[in-house]
């Protein structure tokens, strides 16, 4: 017989991962709901999942590759952009979609108990599915361009996981702060757009002048993108600075995210 003790919680406690595992079916059905609702009443349905990363990739490739003739380290510009968009999509779409998830599901949170972490995690489900579809498109593109894969492909899952976890950390921060101040819901898209330009997605980081390289590499997402790009297309491996700032950004965002989320979690039903 399970015994539940209800009492005021201590200031810091660890997440009850066991409970989240217990509720994994809920995670599945909530994620399924989000995915189903996303493409309900669209006639193209799943085709949008393919078009969403592909269309911008083509536009950027034509603009920057063909017209502006920006460097792409000898790789097809389209592939360079596309390999940038996959980890970036995983990271930024998480924040964009799951960042408002707590507020959007306040009806559930104020009526039924379940591990609250399930809500942002489930909202990230559709992002992960989109990412998997994009990977499929990438495989087709690689075949079309006749690009051979190397041993460094083994590092690709690591960079995707890093993108997911860094996205999760920031999602938790944004989703929590949104509960208190809805302003974040408005500010986040601008911040993400600015961040997008500071990250080598539609261009290569080799475009950045030598004397700014170090400062540029301190942006944790630079490592995410260049790392994934290298693991798929080969070329110049990422620098130690990029790797270090990526890992420290990852750890910091997860740690802060968890702490902020927990603080919000306890009083949530009283605020919303």
């Amino acid at each position, binding site marked *: 017989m399970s015994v539940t003790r209800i009492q*005021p919680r201590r200031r810091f406690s660890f997440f009850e991962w066991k409970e989240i595992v217990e509720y994994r079916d809920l995670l599945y059905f909530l994620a399924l*709901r989000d995915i189903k609702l996303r493409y309900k009443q669209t006639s193209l349905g799943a085709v949008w999942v393919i078009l969403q990363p592909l269309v911008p990739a083509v536009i950027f490739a034509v603009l920057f590759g063909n017209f502006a003739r920006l460097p792409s380290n000898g790789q097809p510009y389209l592939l360079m952009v596309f390999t940038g968009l996959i980890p970036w999509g995983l990271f930024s779409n998480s924040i964009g979609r799951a960042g408002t998830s707590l507020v959007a599901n306040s009806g559930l949170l104020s009526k039924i108990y379940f591990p609250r972490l399930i809500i942002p995690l489930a909202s990230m489900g559709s992002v992960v599915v989109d990412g998997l579809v994009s990977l499929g498109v990438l495989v087709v593109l690689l075949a079309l361009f006749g690009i051979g894969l190397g041993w460094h492909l083994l590092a690709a899952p690591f960079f995707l996981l890093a993108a997911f976890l860094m996205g999760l950390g920031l999602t938790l921060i944004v989703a929590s702060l949104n509960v208190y101040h809805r302003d974040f819901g408005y500010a986040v898209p601008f911040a993400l757009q600015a961040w997008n330009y500071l990250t080598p997605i539609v261009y290569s980081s080799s475009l950045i002048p030598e004397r700014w390289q170090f400062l540029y590499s301190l942006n944790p997402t630079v490592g995410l993108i260049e790392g994934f790009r290298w693991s798929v297309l080969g070329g110049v491996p990422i620098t130690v600075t990029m790797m270090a700032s990526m890992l420290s950004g990852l750890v910091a965002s997860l740690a802060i995210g968890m702490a902020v989320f927990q603080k919000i979690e306890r*009083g949530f039903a009283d605020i919303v």
Partner: protein
Amino acid sequence: MTATSDIAVTVRSLGKSYKIDHLGLAEPPVEAAEGGSRRRWPWQGKGPRQRMSSEIFWALRDVDFEVPRGKVFGVIGRNGAGKSTLLKILSRITEPTTGMAEIRGRVGSLLEVGTGFHPELSGRENIYLNGTLLGMRRRQIDQVFDAIVDFAEVHRFIDTPVKRYSSGMYVRLAFAVAAHLEPDILIIDEVLAVGDLQFQKKCLGKMKDVTGQGRTVLFVSHSLSTVNSLCDTCMLLENGRVTQIGPTESVTASYFASSEETAGSLLDLTADPPGDRFCRMVGARMVDRSGESVSYAHIDREVGIEMTYELLDPSTGPVIPNFHFFTAGQCAFISSPLPQPPASSGRHQATVWLPARFLNEGTYSVNFAATTPIPQCCHFHVQDQFCFEVIEDLHDEARHGAVHKVPGAVRPQLDWSMR
């Protein structure tokens, strides 16, 4: 003394406070307990205005009780007494500020039926989503899926989005999922107020099943008669504190006695008349044969209870008033008229005449309902808002010198023969 394992729920000095400030924002209780003014932004400073603007409100304080396994435990009290806060803490939606509660077994809560239902999803998808939300595993839902569909009577529409369901089907499906989750401890808040009368009966039946299987139920309700018929033990909450715990009958009786202060023998509902689009109740009063309002009934005199209602749409069929008379928290009797009720739209009065020497001395409350038999529906049911007092002379010869209150719900003068 009961062994610990026979106790399903233990609550010890449980309390919950909210900080209320002038904006009306409720701060989380953690901050509220720490008290004092908190600086939000550096430029806001710690002005005296902020210090003045918050006070701590205890929604629940020093609550202690135990619920033995397999018992149905009722919680009653007026609006704002802390009933819902208590259930929210026990179902872990919100955290207590002080004290602790220990729950042995899996908890299912029916705080609001149908939470998490999405209109775009089909009945099938909603059953799985709602079921897992209520803490079931997918495999468990597979097992009871057919029973849920049977109970809700939605076989033909199980793959239709629930936005196309009638409101009755929607509620039935939602309740069916909740009713089949088979927890050890069930927390219920006023769910029986949903659906039509027939469905309510079904739900009451299901609740009796649940308790028959040795499950523990925590039941919060305004309806004293439901509490009386379902609960073994009952707790009365007043302003966040427990004022009484004990056998249901005695607790409901004293709650009933305390409600005299708020309910009277004149009820005016014109500001917000309860009812549906066919018929609604406007008011009620106690009258004598000349049509004058009276404020109390004498045991020796006939008195009438008059309900004023408004028929908005007579197409629904005959609207039958029925009055439920309660005393000491128990239903004494129910009465409805035999003659055909008026069928024209507009205001009508229905008066039931209580003969002299029929009611006992004491306080009676009347619940007013208006129903249509076919198709069965209840237009309104106004509860615990009207009561009146029957008084008698202590020198009355029928008392034979007794000075205490004569027991009984009624005291009719009956024929006797003696040899």
